[in-house]
C-alpha cells in the first residue's frame, strides 16, 4: 500500500484538481486585467498636475505596496460585507489580487512614462496637442512596450500568489488538494500535482511573455 507515489491515485484526482485549476487561472487572468488597467489609471493620476489627485493616489499606491496581500484580502473579505458590498469569495479575491498588483503595475508604468524623452513632450506641446492627446498618442505608445516584460513578471507572481485565496474560502488549486488529502489521508500525490501544475503554467506564461516581448522589440526597432 505505502508506495512513495501512487500513479493510479494521482490520475484519479487529476480531473478534480483540473477544475480547481480553472478557478486559479480565472482569478489570475481577471486579477491581472484589473491590475494592468487600474495600474495605468493610478500611474496617470499620480502624474496629474493636480495635487488634490496626485498626492492621495501616491499615498494609496505606497500604502497598498507596503501592506501584505493576505491582510488586504482578509480586510476586503470581512469588511466589505459590513459596508453593504456582498461579493462572492472569488470576486473578493480577484479584487484583492487586482488592487494589490495594480499598485505594483502603477510603479512599472511610471518608470515607462518617465523614460519617454522630454523632447517628445516638447514636440507635442509645440504642435499644441492637448495633455490627454499627448498621453494617449505620444507618451503611452512609447512608455508601455518597454515595460511589458516587467508587467509579465507580475503576471507570474500573481499566479503564484493565488493560493492565498484559500484563506478566504475560495476552493482554488491548493485548497482543493488539501480537501482531497484530508479525505484520503494521502497528501503526496495532490500536493505534488499542485507543484507540477504551477510549474508548467508558470513556464508557459513566462514563455508567452518572452514571445510578446520579442514581438514588441521588433515594433520598437521600427523606430
Amino acid at each position, binding site marked *: 500500500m505505502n508506495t512513495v507515489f501512487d500513479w493510479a491515485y494521482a490520475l484519479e484526482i487529476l480531473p478534480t484538481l483540473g477544475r480547481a485549476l480553472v478557478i486559479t487561472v480565472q482569478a489570475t487572468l481577471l486579477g491581472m486585467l484589473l491590475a494592468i488597467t487600474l495600474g495605468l489609471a493610478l500611474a496617470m493620476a499620480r502624474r496629474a498636475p493636480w495635487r488634490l489627485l496626485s498626492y492621495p493616489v501616491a499615498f494609496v499606491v505606497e500604502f497598498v505596496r507596503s501592506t501584505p496581500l493576505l491582510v488586504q484580502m482578509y480586510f476586503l473579505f470581512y469588511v466589505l460585507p459590513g459596508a453593504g458590498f456582498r461579493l462572492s469569495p472569488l470576486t473578493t479575491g480577484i479584487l484583492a489580487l487586482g488592487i494589490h498588483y495594480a499598485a505594483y503595475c502603477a510603479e512599472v508604468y511610471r518608470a515607462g512614462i518617465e523614460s519617454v524623452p522630454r523632447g517628445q513632450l*516638447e514636440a507635442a506641446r509645440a504642435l499644441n496637442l492637448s495633455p490627454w*492627446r499627448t498621453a494617449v498618442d505620444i507618451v503611452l505608445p512609447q512608455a508601455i512596450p518597454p515595460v511589458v516584460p516587467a508587467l509579465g513578471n507580475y503576471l507570474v507572481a500573481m499566479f503564484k500568489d493565488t493560493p492565498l485565496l484559500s484563506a478566504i474560502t475560495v476552493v482554488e488549486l491548493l485548497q482543493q488538494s488539501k480537501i482531497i488529502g484530508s479525505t484520503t489521508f494521502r497528501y503526496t500525490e495532490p500536493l505534488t500535482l499542485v507543484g507540477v501544475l504551477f510549474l508548467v503554467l508558470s513556464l508557459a506564461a513566462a514563455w508567452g511573455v518572452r514571445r510578446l516581448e520579442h514581438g514588441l522589440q521588433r515594433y520598437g526597432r521600427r*523606430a
Partner: protein
Amino acid sequence: MSASVRLTNLHKRYGELEVLRGIDLEIPAGQTVSVIGPSGSGKSTLLRLLMTLERPSAGGIEIDGESMWTLSDGKPAPAAHVRRVRGKIGMVFQHFNLFPHMTALGNVIEAPRRVAGLSQQDAVERGREYLEMVGLGDKLEAYPGQLSGGQKQRVGIARALAMRPEIMLFDEVTSALDPELVGGILQIMRDLSAKRTMTMIIVTHQMKFAERCSDRTLFFDAGRIVEDADSATLFAHPRQERTRQFLQAVIEAE
C-alpha cells in the same frame, strides 16, 4: 498669414542662473530674423519661451498684440488662452523630436487630425502636400528610424508647417546633421522665407545663411541682445566690439 512678435523686458532665470537678462524686441509680421551668438547666450531659451515650453520669469510676450500669459485686464491667462495663442506658433527642433512610433506621414498628420480637427482624408492630403514640398513624397510610410538625419529634419519641418503657423521657430535645426545634409535643409528654409507667408525666427550657427537669407540678425551674448541690425549691415559692419570678436572667431574657424 503671419504674426508680429513683441517682447518686453523678458527675463528667464533658473535658480541663480540668469539666462535672459531683459530682452526688448519687436519683430514685424513676415520678417525673417536670424539669432546668432555663443552657446549659453540665451538664443535657444528665447525660442523656448516663445513656444511656451518655458514660462518667463518676468516680462511679457505678445503675439499680434495679444499677451501670451496675461489677459487684457492683467490677470493670469487660463490654459485655453495660452493654447489658442500658442496655436499660431510652430517649432522645428535641433534633435528633430519626431514621434518614433509613427510614420513620417503619421508625424505630420497628428496635429492636423487631433488639434485642427481635420478628417483623416483631409489630413492625409495635407500631410502628403507638405512632405512632397520638403522632398519626401516617397517616404510617407517610413518610420523615423529608417530615415537619415536630413530626412528626419525634413519631416520635422513638414510637421510644423502642416499646422500652418504664423510664426515659425527654428532651433539650430542643422546642428545635428552631417555637413553634406545641411545645404538641403537651408534651401527649404530659404524658400519658406522668400514666400513671406510666415514670420521666421532662426537660431543658427550658419553665418552665411544668416547673412544672405534673413532680413535681420540679432547678436546675443550673456542673455542680452548686443546688436540688432539688418543682416547685411551686421555682418559687414558690426558696431559692437563683442560682435566683431565673435564673427572673427567664427569666420576663422570656418
